[in-house]
């Protein structure tokens, strides 16, 4: 038996543990969506590396629990509907 309380080889034997580990706190700027400009083209949804764009019926929203604030969505939005706003 190991005296260290960790699982051998950093294996995580339980699936979906990443859901418990919210990474939104890493963010320094947050994307804010202007729903008047959004045409629901889903370019941001395709580009988001953290699957943090939420699809709604007529426009999109952001899952701030996991969005790390990289700004790719704002850069790629063809309608300039996403603005990066300083946190805090």
């Amino acid at each position, binding site marked *: 038996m*190991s*005296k*260290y*309380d*960790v*699982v*051998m*080889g*950093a*294996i*995580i*034997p*339980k*699936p979906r*543990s990443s859901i418990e580990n919210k990474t939104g706190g890493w963010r320094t700027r947050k994307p804010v969506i202007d729903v008047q400009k959004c045409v629901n083209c889903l370019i941001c949804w395709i580009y988001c590396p953290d699957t943090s764009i939420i699809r709604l019926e007529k426009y999109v929203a952001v899952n701030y629990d996991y969005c790390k604030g990289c700004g790719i969505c704002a850069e790629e939005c063809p309608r300039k509907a996403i603005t990066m706003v300083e946190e805090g």
Partner: protein
Amino acid sequence: MVRRLGLTGNEAIAYAVKQCDVGLVSAYPITPQTIIVERISDYVANGEIDTEFVCVESEHSALSACIGASLTGLRVFTATASQGLALMHEVLYATSGLRCPIVMAVANRALSAPLNIHGDHSDMMGSRDCGWIQIFAENVQEAYDWTIQSFKIAEHPDVQLPVAVNIDGFTLTHCLEDIEVLEKEDVEKFLPPRKPIYRIDPEKPMTFGAWAMPEYYYKFKLQQQEAMENSIKVFKQVADEYGKLTGRNYGVIQSYGLEGSKVAIMALGSTCGTLRHVAKILRETKGLKVGVIKLWLYRPIPEDDFISTVENVETLIVLDRALSPGAVFGPLGSDVASMIVKRNLDFRLLNYTYGLGGDEVSMDLADKLLRLAVKVAEGVKPTSLTGYLREVV
């Protein structure tokens, strides 16, 4: 019944792998290792073994493929040498960190530049701290025997670490020896199928290769170190069991002629055979008594066994077959020095480098070294406590 075969070191390792029910082999050819995987691919092509052979474009990919296969629960083997081991370097750490019990033969060869395909230990010593158990074989029989034992050591629940079986390039890889081999049924009894603790299984999803934050990272590494320490006990158990099966008794360390002798030479691998042979001649013909100490197990370093072995030794010459430019001692010399300091022992330690790029220790050179050892033990001051063997004796 004992069966004898004439095999080279490479062929003997391939033959051992054939008998160990290995699930996957992935490798890239490099001298002087190539024949190992060539023979294994022959066995696969001839339908003699049910092993998946994966051809890849580099050693980096070879070991990466091995990790993936090992994580699915398979028994995995690969082999490399020299530049190939250097190219694997980062993947070596991933293998031990992910606790994959892969066995790899390393046909020890010099590193470029200048280009040289011959034997020395620079390759393994360059990856010394990669977290693999490291065994050095002295002859072809040992190469065969250690390959079979290595799977059992690596896969033990208290170990779960990769093992490198080192054989000196050309001296062992390409030289033909008459060896004893086991029957397949005996190997099967000695080495049952691998029982992985965790494995990739679509029915039971798990995360492998996760990252660890500072407050956890050191715990994983210390747990790895703990497994390394556990492996000494397992290593001895496996060697005992193998000894009962074959009559060939192995352990972590082997000594010759230490009775009545206060001076000894210590080394790794094939050179130990030459040293022992010359020590025997000098003892029988001249009455000169020099002991020879060989480490079978280099990592983890068997500290307690070393200390009890050198109990009566007053002068020890440690030979390193790898250069550590800018250092005081070579890798093995430094290990011995640290054990001496830790245990507060008092004896004279000399550390010579030898055998770089295939500059073999002949009987003549061994004779000069042993005579020097006797003189130093008698109180004669050596020209140098360190240096290159050929230049100092």
